[in-house]
């Protein structure tokens, strides 16, 4: 009997093959993004640690928010881990050293930020509480300056480690390709910005309609610490609203797909809920949860995102072919199994279309929800307030932060999508 083993190339195409550079698809830049984010997080966490940086530098002030800080610290750990995985650092001696350096830094930073236990401070005899507040007592200043100098060493070392792991110099051909690939985006950006600037100057458009990009940029660098804080507050609402709304949408979508008559009954109700403009709901929801309670904002986001998630789930769960269902039936698979192994994966393309739409919706929702009363520490309040007071450059700077957060959120969901459904036609490569 003839054995038909295929001539499959067994060579893994390693990400850093010396001979042939790997294909520069969009995933090709994942490592660079991870490395850059890790480096940025190293810098940020370094700033958070010492009041001299946190309270006295513009950059440090941006990260003064106490709920944001632990997230950033944990983020550092996650990204460092991703970086080590991506580069397979344990493969080489240098990699192992760099990994160790990064981990040591993380070990210093994490307790300092998450548990308020600054090891270095403890060694210098500084009270832990003093790290959390602006330095008013000049007597402590020299001690903090020493602490700062000392802590700069591991921070710089960590940066060096990231750089070694990343080795951007070995990836130059990548960048050439990536630049070529992403040239259109950059080009559009440049053209639009230049046109925007030029048109305003040439046609003398009054700045209170649209400020010039340069004015916005200048304003941005001036006020970004405030924007980071309010942006973070608003993003949290958007995120949790997204989770609740899409989660509920998915769950009810499941129920509807399972029980057809329930679906035809639930659907009108869902549509009804969705046709109610948030602006009408907002006062009622504010009454219910209390306008100062984040729950009211989260509820508004949830209502906004619920519908796309639900309707796409129903559609997606029914997007299986009769033959595929028959196969499952022939195994006498339970409904649950049919769901898990067939309907769920088959519905993913639809669900992800919905989730992507929901990311931007959730940012809009979180921002708009702040228009109807409540906290003054949000992006939406800032945008509206600045616009109302004719501080248009400030308003636009805030809008830019909103956009960035929205795009970030969208990109995150897209990355998960790619990761979950590599089989889908839209991601296949030749």
């Amino acid at each position, binding site marked *: 009997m003839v054995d038909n083993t295929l001539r499959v190339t067994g060579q893994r195409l390693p990400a850093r093959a010396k001979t042939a550079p790997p294909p520069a698809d969009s995933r090709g830049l994942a490592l660079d993004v991870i490395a850059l984010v890790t480096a940025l997080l190293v810098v940020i966490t370094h700033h958070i640690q010492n009041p001299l940086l946190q309270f006295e530098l513009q950059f440090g002030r941006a990260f003064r928010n106490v709920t944001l800080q632990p997230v950033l610290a944990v983020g550092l750990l996650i990204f460092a881990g991703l970086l080590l995985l991506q580069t397979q650092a344990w493969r080489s001696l240098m990699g192992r050293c760099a990994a160790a350096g990064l981990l040591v830094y993380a070990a210093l930073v994490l307790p300092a930020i998450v548990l308020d236990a600054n090891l270095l401070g403890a060694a210098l005899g500084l009270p832990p509480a003093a790290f959390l507040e602006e330095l008013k007592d000049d007597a402590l200043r020299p001690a903090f300056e020493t602490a700062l100098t000392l802590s700069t060493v591991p921070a710089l070392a960590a940066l060096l480690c990231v750089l070694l792991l990343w080795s951007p110099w070995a990836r130059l051909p990548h960048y050439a390709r990536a630049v070529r690939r992403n040239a259109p985006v950059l080009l559009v950006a440049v053209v639009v910005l230049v046109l925007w600037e030029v048109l305003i100057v040439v046609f003398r458009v009054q700045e*209170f309609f649209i400020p010039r990009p340069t004015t916005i940029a200048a304003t941005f660098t001036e006020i970004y610490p405030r924007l980071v804080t309010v942006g973070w507050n608003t993003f949290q609402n958007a995120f949790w609203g997204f989770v609740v709304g899409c989660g509920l949408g998915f769950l009810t979508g499941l129920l509807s797909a399972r029980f057809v008559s329930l679906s035809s009954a639930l659907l009108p109700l869902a549509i009804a809920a969705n046709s109610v403009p948030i602006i009408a709901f907002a006062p009622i929801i504010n009454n219910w949860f209390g*306008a100062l309670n984040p729950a009211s904002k989260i509820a508004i986001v949830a209502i906004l995102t619920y519908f796309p998630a639900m309707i796409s789930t129903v559609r997606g769960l029914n997007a299986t072919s009769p033959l595929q269902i028959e196969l499952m039936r022939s195994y006498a698979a339970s409904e649950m199994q049919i769901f898990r192994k067939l309907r769920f994966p088959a519905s993913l393309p639809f669900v992800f279309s919905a989730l992507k739409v929901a990311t931007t919706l959730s940012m809009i929702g979180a921002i708009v929800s702040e228009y109807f*009363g409540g906290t003054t520490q949000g992006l939406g309040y800032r945008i509206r307030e600045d616009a109302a007071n*004719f501080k248009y450059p400030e308003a636009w700077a805030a809008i830019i932060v909103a956009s960035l957060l929205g795009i970030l959120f969208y990109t995150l969901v897209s990355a998960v999508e790619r990761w979950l459904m590599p089989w889908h036609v839209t991601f296949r490569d030749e």
Partner: protein
Amino acid sequence: QDVPTVRVQMKWVTQAQFAGFYAARELGYWEEEGLNVEVLPGGPDIGPQQVVAAGGAEFGIDWLGSMLASREQGTKAVNIAQIYQRSGMRQLTWKDSGLETFADLRGTVTGVWGFGNQYPLFAALVKNEIDPDNPDDITIFNQPFDMVAFLNREIDSAAAMTYNEMAQVFEYVAEDGTFPVYTPDDVNILDLNEEGTAMLEDLVFVNEDWLAQAGNEEIAIQFLRGSFRGWVYCRDNVEACVDFVLAEGATLGTGHQLWMMNEVNKLVWPSPAGIGILDMELYQQTADIALNYEVISTAPDEGAVRTDLAQAALDGLIADYPDVDFMGMDYEPIDVAITPNGE
């Protein structure tokens, strides 16, 4: 045929706050002046300054603070007539809370609207050494259009216009139909006018460039003459004016609009220098507060205000209608009963 058409942009939705303008249109005062005027209702997010600057309207109604801010950004808005002579903004607290002065607001949750309306309150707070930006001193609550948060006691004090939100508190009907639930005896009314930090409110403004065009000063004067007569009419014919307003907005409560009309009259009248003439002292106070709170970054220039047009209109009117009182020095408000739910 030769009648020029101009538009006037209100600051908010149709209500008795703008009754004088509706009266001027309904009674044909503007027509008599040789003008065809369109009254554009406003709403949240409508900046009358933007509309006027963009040429969407010739005249705009706005509060002085935001007008100055917009001028600084280049809208070239010019105040040509100050209709309201005093501020209608108050801060309400519950009587049982014991918060009786602005100084008492330290450590409370204090509601106030945005859109630049917060600055008079902030000025009062600072005057009492409370930093509105410091959460340890006071929690500022971005107050929505309604008074629910105050009624639910979610916040300790709330901003209220005498002619609108304040009435809503008293018009409230309880679950079981009890009415009135709250009377003026149940609340403390903190007055910004008394604290000396009030900012001037409704005024008429135009665009400087527009005004500079030949013939437009005359049009402005014609517009003001009609408007002034409308406001005079509303002072003397409260109920008729309310009917004009109701005809504009199908969903408004009659009792509430009547209350509003009466309260608005109190803000307009008496006008010691004549209707529409700006009190320079109050103007200075407003400008100072605006400067203090970075609503504007430099003191307003000379061109921000022109009283001559209003004066010309007023003088003309006094000459043409010698019997009519354009100062209202002995204006007496009428008594308006609070109706349940403002019906």
